């Protein structure tokens, strides 16, 4: 049977892609951010996932406002990145796992999550930057992937609680999968930031740090809040923390933090990183 080895949550700021392309990992601006990943690399070497299920939000690469699914699950043999308009280098295609995709789709719809399925799906920086951060170097990806996209472009967005429950259902689906796979669940986005409006540049360190502290032990502390409240507390784009809640949901039960990092600012964003595992029974 498949086993969830843990969850990783990380920011996905596009500027990170530019920094990687220019080898700025040791630059003083970037070092506190990139240094946070060395422990995650060691953790990944230890837990050796076969597959990554990645919860992320598209920013206008694959989905436009003509058709905007609330939840979309990839079911493609591979996922390609493409030009997003402002010049970050694309990454090599990421392999999919169609059999696991359709298993997740069956289970999620069976649990009344009326998702959209995508046999062709471009994936944007919200998936490719975490891939490049977690498995740096060659682009010969050591994992297959199943992307799960959550709408954070156009309100009404799904509630934080709904995203958390989606993650719980993803977790149950993985655990019910017959193959002996090791699966890592990744949630990308956040933490607090706001790109648009007169409040642009808004960051809320106090909230972010409390959110990271509560996430493993009391995810409902954040998940029970309305989207309006979350935008007020974390910024219009800070709402991407719902990806973190979904990834946490996949772990179920109680969880512990294995590693975390938090750094302000990366571009306009408070950058967060966590690795969580289930608490041993």
């Amino acid at each position, binding site marked *: 049977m498949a086993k969830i080895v843990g969850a990783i949550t990380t920011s996905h700021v596009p500027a990170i892609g530019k920094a990687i392309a220019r080898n700025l990992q040791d630059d003083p601006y970037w070092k506190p951010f990139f240094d946070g990943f060395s422990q995650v690399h060691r953790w990944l070497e230890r837990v050796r996932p076969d597959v990554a299920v990645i919860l992320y939000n598209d920013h206008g690469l694959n989905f436009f406002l003509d058709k905007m699914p609330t939840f979309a699950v990839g079911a493609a043999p591979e996922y390609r990145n493409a030009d997003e308009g402002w010049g970050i280098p694309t990454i090599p295609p990421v392999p999919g796992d169609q059999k696991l995709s359709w298993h997740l789709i069956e289970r999620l719809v069976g649990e009344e999550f009326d998702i959209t399925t995508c046999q062709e799906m471009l994936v944007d920086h919200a998936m490719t930057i975490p891939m490049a951060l977690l498995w740096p170097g060659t682009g010969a990806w050591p994992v297959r992937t199943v992307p799960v996209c959550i709408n954070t472009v156009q309100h009404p967005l799904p509630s934080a609680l709904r995203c958390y429950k989606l993650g719980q259902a993803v977790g149950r689906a993985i655990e019910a999968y017959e193959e002996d796979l090791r699966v890592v669940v990744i949630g990308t986005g956040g933490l607090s930031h706001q*790109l*648009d409006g007169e409040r642009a540049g808004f960051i809320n360190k106090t909230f972010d740090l409390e959110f990271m502290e509560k996430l493993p032990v009391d995810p409902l502390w954040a998940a029970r809040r309305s989207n309006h409240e979350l935008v007020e507390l974390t910024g219009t784009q800070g709402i991407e923390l719902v990806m973190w809640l979904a990834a946490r949901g996949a772990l179920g039960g109680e969880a512990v933090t294995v590693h975390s990092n938090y750094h302000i600012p990366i571009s306009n964003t408070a950058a967060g990183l966590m690795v969580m595992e289930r608490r041993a029974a």
Partner: protein
Amino acid sequence: MSRPQSIPGTHLFDGAAAMKGYALNKMCYSFNSAANREAFKQDEDGYCERYGLNAQQREAVRHRNVLELIAAGGNVYYLAKLAGIFGLDVQDLGAQQTGLSKDEFKAKLVAAGR
């Protein structure tokens, strides 16, 4: 249905904005293609006309003004693709919207980490 009080300086991109800004956002979405970015640069008026921008949207594009673009229904994720044509990043956009210089805006972000 009662709506919660608005958040100062914050514009939620909802159904009303999505309808209002559809043409503008559709044009910006087209800038995922380098050929389309080039076509816009060659003939900005013609390109805007082809996407059916209304007068408010056309003026906002002409002014390169983010708050005007948002008021015209623009969504920041699509607007970022337009801004990229002018070589502007999200910190330029942030500085413009808050009336700060880019250095001042960056300093504000650094201060948020203390």
